[in-house]
């Protein structure tokens, strides 16, 4: 069985609205129902109503990973295996959420953004275009392929996921983030005409690299006082700052 182009495009488009009505109790439940209900209406002849009821409840996963589960559920419901579809959904949604969080939010998004920021120090609009284009190509491509893979591997949804080298992708992105951050810092140090802007960007990149906010919890009053005095001194007395 194959998924037609039209169905596939429809699913991907609907999956964009997955978090449209996010709530604490059901999380993306209504969004999942919205994505799958049209298909269920068309493809489940007996008991459409109970099929729709089954898939209107708690659901939460990473938005980019959701098309995989949509594909799995679509195939299994069409083949008349409601129990299989429910157990696949329940078992996979939280591992996929974990995977998506560390892959997309934790690794790929910072990677694309930091590279984009580096470019935008040179040519602002090019950097912004880079972030939008690269990240969204990835976004749509992931949704599109995962939907098809979910549909094809609906019988053993777990095997496809465990066979992929997601960990390699995460490590690869992490490997790029740190040097890219250093690169950003190096650029910022000399890039701007006004040293003040350089200082701000330089300081923020350094802060990001060293995870320095955490130190504020444990740091002494002395440290905070030094920071505030330094801030006041710079703000009021040093004449070459951009805000002078």
């Amino acid at each position: 069985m194959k998924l037609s182009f039209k169905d596939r495009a429809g699913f991907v488009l609907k999956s964009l609205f997955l978090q449209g009505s996010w709530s604490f109790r059901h999380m993306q439940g209504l969004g999942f129902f919205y994505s799958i209900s049209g298909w269920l209406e068309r493809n489940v002849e007996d008991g459409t109503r109970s099929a729709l009821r089954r898939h209107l409840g708690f659901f939460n996963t990473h938005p980019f990973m959701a098309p995989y589960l949509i594909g799995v559920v679509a195939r299994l419901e069409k083949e008349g295996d409601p129990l299989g579809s429910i157990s696949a959904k329940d078992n996979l949604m939280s591992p996929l959420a974990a995977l998506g969080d560390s892959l997309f939010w934790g690794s790929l998004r910072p990677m694309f953004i930091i590279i984009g920021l580096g470019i935008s120090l040179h040519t602002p609009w090019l950097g912004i275009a880079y972030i939008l284009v690269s990240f969204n190509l990835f976004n749509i491509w992931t949704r599109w392929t995962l939907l098809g893979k979910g549909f094809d591997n609906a019988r053993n949804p777990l095997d496809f996921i465990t066979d992929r080298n997601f960990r390699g992708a995460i490590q690869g992105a992490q490997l790029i983030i740190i040097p890219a951050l250093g690169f950003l810092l190096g650029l910022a140090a000399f890039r701007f005409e006004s040293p003040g802007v350089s200082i701000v960007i330089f300081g923020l990149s350094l802060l990001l690299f060293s995870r320095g906010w955490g130190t504020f919890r444990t740091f002494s009053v002395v440290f905070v006082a030094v920071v505030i005095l330094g801030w006041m001194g710079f703000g009021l007395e040093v004449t070459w700052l951009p805000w002078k």
Partner: protein
Amino acid sequence: MPVVFVRVDDRLIHGQIVEGWVPFVGADAIYVVDDEICLDESRCRLMRMILPSGLGLRIIATAELSEALASDRLNRVMILFNSLNSLVSAVENGFSMGNINVGNIHNLRGGHQITPSVFLNKNDVTLVKKLHDMGIALEVRDVPDGRCHDLFKLVCHEDVRR
């Protein structure tokens, strides 16, 4: 056996743990403690897959916990329980910790919402009170930067309101 962090979370290893708590507490190993999950081959495989590199993982039954901790002297260990039930049974088997974090408990069936991410049913409420009587403090906090609440106080507050 330096246990650096103990958490009750029905989503086990997920983004809040991997991105938030592991770097915050500086853990070297995660123990997932649950009697059912340690027998479930597919869930074990999935958890191994999403684990960051350089982090150890052991998935064990509640009865094995004390023994496993006694034999593991080098690591900074983070312990994850699937539910309050498995936490209580681990405590009854000799595990002790003064302060325990509560992340997500999503008992939708018969559950009552205590905080945005914690839904407790009647059984859970009695367990919370039991743990409080044993002198174990339960704090609700989803990520390190988040706000802290005392679960026992919240539960008592709910009781009064109802």
